[in-house]
């Protein structure tokens, strides 16, 4: 087992375990913290795929900014284990079955997709995740969608300021 494989299995186990803990945790704050652990593990996967830029942006944007807002909301609403409504056991069972079916559909989809067949993921070789290549692709091939999405962000920002001023 090479060191890359070892890291891959370690990160995968960490990601799956943390993802399960997000769902299982009774305390919403714990759930958020486990979700941050998931983001860390996924960023590790990005680095294994030689996409350092994506990895760090994933950390800055999701783990660093969005999750802080999640924590803000949960802390201010003072949600905790005792405030969590008790769910019926049958409801939980139904949820498990529904989730399991969805997982099966997803797995079969991935397994049968033509694009994904006969393609082995090679670790640490891709170049597109590096900031130089990503920048070139974004500003040459995809410049119009990129600019449109930036206008979208700007309008969202202006909207937030306007709403904030009204209150």
């Amino acid at each position, binding site marked *: 087992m090479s060191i890359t494989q070892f890291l891959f299995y370690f990160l995968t186990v960490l990601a799956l375990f943390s993802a399960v803990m997000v769902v299982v945790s009774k305390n919403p*704050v714990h759930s958020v913290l486990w979700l941050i652990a998931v983001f860390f593990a996924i960023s590790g996967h990005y680095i294994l795929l030689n996409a350092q830029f994506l990895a760090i942006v994933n950390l*800055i944007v999701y783990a660093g900014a969005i999750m*802080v807002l999640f924590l803000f909301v949960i802390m201010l609403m003072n949600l905790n284990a005792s405030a969590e409504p008790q769910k019926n056991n049958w409801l939980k069972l139904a949820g498990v079955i529904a989730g399991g079916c969805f997982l099966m559909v997803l797995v079969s989809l991935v397994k049968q997709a033509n694009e994904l067949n006969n393609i082995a993921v090679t670790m640490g070789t891709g170049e597109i995740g590096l900031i130089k290549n990503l920048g070139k692709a974004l500003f040459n091939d995809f410049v119009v969608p990129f600019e449109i999405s930036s206008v979208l962000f700007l309008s969202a920002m202006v909207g937030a300021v306007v709403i904030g001023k009204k209150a």
Partner: protein
Amino acid sequence: MTLLAVDWLLIIEKLVLIAIIVFASLGIALYTTFAERKVAAVLQDRPGPNRAGPFGLLQPFADGLKLIMKEEIIPTSSNKALFVLGPGLAMTAALMTCSVIPWSSHIEIFDRKIDLQIADINIGILYIFGVVSMGVYGMMIGGWASNNKFSLMAALRGASQAISYELAMGLSLIAVLMLSGSLSLKTIVDGQMAAGSYWNIVYQPLGFIIFFVCALAECNRTPFDLPEAENELNFGYHQEYSSMKLGFYLFSEYINMIMSSAVMASLYFGGFDIPFLDESTLAPNIAAIIGVAALLTKIAIFIFVFMWIRWTVPRFRYDQLMNLGWKTMIPLALFNMLVTGALILLKAGV
């Protein structure tokens, strides 16, 4: 055993480097607390700590011993796991920054070239941003887990302050990145060291001022120490902490200060560059040692300025802090970015 197919010498080299840098940062942080009290004393015209050892030089050890000896109290209604996790996270995030800072060029031991930088990654600055945004969690988790209204208030203040100033900080950095064309701190420092080029401060005075103000806010230093405003929030987000857990929080603040000084020195003041001296004429080992000394001097000067500001400028009000961040710093940083971009294009003759 293909699992062991790694360069063990490299791993040992890096581990030694990490150990040296971490312990050195802790040692410097120890004496930064002492310097803080001495600077305060000088500015307030009093002698300051002078009892423990010659000139009071053993004072930080006395303080540390006192903190360790104090009773460890975990409030009964707190969230115990997170209460313990908080200070640890704050400390880890503070120390993690040191891994991408180029402390000097390289030294040669037994024909082996050793770079005095733990990791020269091609996204160095973004890495620092990632770590800084992790630092918020130490504060938030600690403040929330204490189950105290004042702690929670302080934690929320601190987190929103950090997020607000991170934006302006990032925007002011973009101008530096446009100048140097790289995200790697090593490349940025090398660009400033090259013959015929000046330090980035010459090209980016406004950008540096914005970055410096934001660094003050990120480190929760006066005039932006709102999360620790004693007269409003008792003691701030570490209200319920005692013993070494409190020590970790206080200590991580000093380490943050050292690291942000090191980042500022690398980005704007040539890192380990010595002004008016051509390092390439010296033997590599001597140049490396002089380089470390130069960087540490720059860091010391920055830390002194941090303290000078702390003991001269009064604290901002919270709405003033937010106004300054969003309505002054961000527009200024955007303006700086536009001007820099325009000048670069003009110089390139497009």
